[in-house]
């Protein structure tokens, strides 16, 4: 089977969809599936052999944030040429509602199309309501729809209708499970970690910082480590202005390399996800769970799903610093609770491993394309033998 995967966002810029496409392609190749990826790039960086790049992305404002997309006549030509040369069995487009390569590929598709919807958007997204009727004929070409979470499925259904299956984002669990804890980030009183864009309000860092002095009252030896993209000086300034005890116990690391962030999660006693905005999936939660941290997260529906409604990690009312402090107090005081959560989480994350997720996506390809794993000739032979053999059942010893 040959699959063409289309990414709408610049492949050489970090992002969740890009990472998903990159890792999915690798996991499928590991299963013997031929893969060709079509993706826009910002600059002429070197990409693996199976990635076909489309140069010339344009940064545009779309649906509330800046996205680097690829469109226009030359992109259309390149999509057509790619499809003509690759002779695909299945086309898998990501975020087909974003005006970029995925949408263009959809319009030119001749083979069965699978589409993955990643984003979860507010119900009152006016932009999406306006463009939905225009997109509908193109989206009608999709045979199989995948949403990465229930929130993403709800968003998809609300704006475009139709049914879909939920298959979560994948993760290399072993990479996080093998990450080593770093003594320099640990603390006797418990090490609490925040990892995410520090300057994006909906990641909720301010909720955590507001709760922190209350934690220090009960756990003076606890330590808070803040990491992620954003202005370190600005966050440091906010921390220092909160007074001596807070300034002493909070460390601002800023952006980390992938390996370091896995180590940081492995070191964390508690990973806090105080997000306030509409999150579609919560990959970082799964990463923390895979690294062995116990998780405390706001009760957004995507987070509640990942944490099994509190069984694999604790939840608190979104945006409530008092509740966050109370939840964190319990987790820091009771190692038994932490280890029980971590044990449950280690079991839950297995279903997010690429070995499981790629298999599920492959079955969607097969169901959409009308193919199975076993060679059809061999299959039909087995089938004809069914009625003959009904009398002679093999009895196990």
């Amino acid at each position, binding site marked *: 089977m040959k699959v063409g995967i289309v990414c709408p966002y610049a492949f050489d810029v970090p992002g969740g969809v890009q990472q998903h496409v990159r890792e999915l392609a690798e996991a499928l190749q590991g299963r013997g599936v031929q893969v060709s990826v079509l993706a826009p790039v910002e600059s002429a960086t070197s990409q693996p052999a199976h990635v076909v790049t489309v140069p010339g992305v344009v940064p545009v404002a779309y649906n509330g944030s800046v996205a680097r997309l690829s469109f226009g006549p030359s992109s259309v030509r390149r999509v057509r040429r790619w499809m003509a040369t690759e002779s695909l069995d299945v086309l898998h487009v990501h975020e087909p509602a974003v005006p970029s390569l995925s949408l263009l590929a959809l319009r030119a598709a001749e083979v069965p199309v699978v589409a993955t919807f990643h984003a979860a958007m507010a119900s009152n997204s006016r932009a999406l309501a306006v463009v939905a009727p225009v997109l509908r004929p193109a989206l009608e070409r999709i045979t*199989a729809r995948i949403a990465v979470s229930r929130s993403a499925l709800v968003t998809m259904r609300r704006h475009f209708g*139709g049914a879909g*299956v939920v298959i979560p984002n994948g993760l290399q669990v072993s990479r996080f499970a093998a990450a080593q804890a770093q003594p320099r980030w640990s603390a006797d009183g418990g090490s609490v970690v925040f990892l995410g864009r520090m300057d994006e309000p909906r990641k909720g860092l301010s909720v955590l910082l507001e709760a922190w002095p209350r934690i220090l009252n009960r756990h003076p030896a606890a330590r808070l480590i803040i990491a992620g993209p954003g202005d370190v000086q600005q966050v440091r300034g906010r921390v220092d202005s909160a007074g001596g005890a807070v300034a002493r116990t909070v460390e601002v690391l800023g952006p980390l390399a992938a390996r370091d962030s896995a180590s940081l999660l492995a070191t964390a006693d508690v990973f806090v996800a105080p997000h306030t905005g509409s999150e579609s999936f919560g990959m970082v939660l799964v990463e923390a769970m895979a690294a062995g941290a116990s998780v405390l997260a706001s009760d957004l529906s995507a987070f509640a799903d990942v944490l099994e409604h509190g069984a694999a990690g604790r939840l608190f009312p979104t945006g409530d610093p008092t509740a966050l402090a109370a939840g964190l107090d319990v987790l820091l005081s009771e190692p038994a609770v932490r280890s029980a959560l971590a044990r449950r989480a280690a079991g839950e994350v297995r279903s997010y491993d690429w070995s499981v997720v790629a298999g599920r996506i492959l079955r969607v390809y097969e*169901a959409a394309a*009308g193919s199975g*794993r076993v060679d059809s000739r061999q299959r039909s032979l087995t*089938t004809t033998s*069914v009625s003959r053999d009904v009398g002679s059942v093999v009895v*196990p010893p």
Partner: protein
Amino acid sequence: MSAQGAVIVLCCLLVVGVLVVMLSSIAGRLDRLHIRLATTHASLNRQLIDRAAATADVAHSGALDSACSVLLLAAADTARHATTQAAQRGDVWGRDDVESALSVDLRAVLGRPDAVAAAWHSKTARPLLVELAESCDRVRLARRFHDDLTARTAAVRRQRLVRLLHLAGHAAWPVVVELDDEPPAALLVAADHAGPMPPAT
């Protein structure tokens, strides 16, 4: 006067032109929908045949006790027989009950973790069990995609213009496939966590 007449004629031509483009685009859209509907239908058919064969393979493998083997083998054979008969009648469908019964039997035999764990002991049966789990999942997916497309096609065909001008031609009215396709849960979990298997021989 003649200039005015020319303008009127031009306007009429324009309106007719726009109408023709609009109608042909709807007809093209419908045509594509029906082609894909046929594809998903064929896929569902294929996945059901696969599932019956995979069920028989597991029943023959010796991994199950004899009662379970007999039950599954009989259900798989009934499903296969119904497929052949339906094909001979020229009937596209008409075997929903039989396929639903196979789903019920598969859940009864392999729906619980202890039953799957017992069957899992047999190394030779493991790839067959994985294949069966995957074919059950593919049946469920294929039916969902088929029914989703059916609903979308029917929505377009219900439009007044489409009905009035007979834009769908002679294509049969799309019908959803009603059947119990719920896979045996424990088997699916076990197969998912087994990772990729070498192809069954």
